[in-house]
């Protein structure tokens, strides 16, 4: 056996939509798989199995862990937010956060009407992979549009408002035990740094507002990126298991929060 195949055995084969780990374990993008199902084609067993495995992994680790720890588009949208912060661009008007669920519905309805997995041609997540792995530049304009949209039109437009993949992983994350918890919420000094850096700032309100007794950020829109942990000088946040009862009760917060 050539060395290359031997080494290749240890690695992923395929792409983020569908791949083989160690040549045996199938992994597939649950959204792509759902689209295949909706298009009326019965997918290969390995695709179905791969989707089930991936859903299981993220149900355990936290749904949107995919967004902040795996998805390559996140690097682009983070760059856009960073650019916004560096240029001190003003807050933009809000568009509804739940738009992404309508996008998800649309992405799943389109295959019923057309018989094709339409979204896979536009989905920026596999486009990054195609571009980097095959040098296929055909979809790169979508990435440029996303960067410009996020930077100059609506802040965090793509990942926090529109992306159907993020929406699906958010739904998967509803059952996850891993959450960020405001374990030292009483030490919060209202500097608002977490609020500035968080891509889904609405999820922070319930744990920091006055009178709050809930330390866990239960809203599954939280990407578990840990930015709030990094940015907080009084060490308010930590990753925690939400079924650990030690943290599930706390005295109501007395601080007057600006959130």
């Amino acid at each position, binding site marked *: 056996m050539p060395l290359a195949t031997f080494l290749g055995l240890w*690695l992923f084969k395929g792409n983020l939509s569908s791949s083989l780990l160690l040549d045996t374990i199938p992994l597939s993008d649950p959204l792509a798989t759902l689209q295949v199902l909706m298009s009326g084609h019965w997918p290969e067993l390995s695709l179905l199995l791969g989707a089930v495995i991936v859903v299981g992994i993220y149900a355990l680790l936290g749904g949107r862990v995919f967004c902040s720890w795996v998805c390559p588009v996140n690097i682009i949208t983070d760059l856009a937010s960073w650019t916004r912060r560096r240029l001190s661009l003003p807050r933009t008007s809000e568009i509804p956060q739940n738009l992404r669920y309508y996008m998800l519905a649309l992405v799943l309805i389109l295959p019923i009407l057309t018989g094709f997995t339409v979204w896979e041609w536009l989905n920026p997540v596999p486009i990054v992979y195609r571009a980097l792995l095959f040098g296929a530049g055909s979809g790169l304009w979508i990435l440029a549009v996303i960067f410009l949209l996020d930077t100059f039109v609506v802040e965090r437009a793509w990942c926090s408002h529109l992306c159907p993949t993020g929406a699906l992983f958010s739904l998967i994350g509803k059952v996850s035990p891993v959450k960020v918890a405001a374990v030292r919420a009483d030490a919060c000094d209202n500097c608002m740094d977490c609020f500035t850096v968080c891509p889904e700032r609405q999820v922070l309100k319930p744990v920091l507002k006055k009178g709050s007794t809930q330390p866990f950020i239960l809203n599954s829109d939280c990407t578990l990126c840990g930015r709030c942990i990094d940015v907080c000088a009084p060490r308010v946040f930590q990753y925690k298991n939400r079924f650990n009862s030690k943290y599930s009760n706390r005295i109501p917060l007395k601080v007057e929060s600006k959130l």
Partner: protein
Amino acid sequence: MINQHRSASKSTTRFGHAAVTELGWWRAHRFLILRRLSQLSVLSLFAIGYFFRFMAF
């Protein structure tokens, strides 16, 4: 020590400066760096997979 960061005035210092002063550079950037490493590792695992597939077949 806990209140040390309060002295850093928000308007005169860079964003996130309080955390760097209080926690040190690594702890104030820990998850950012780890996330980027994770994202790039997944990307390179796929890239290497492709590379070897072309080599082997």
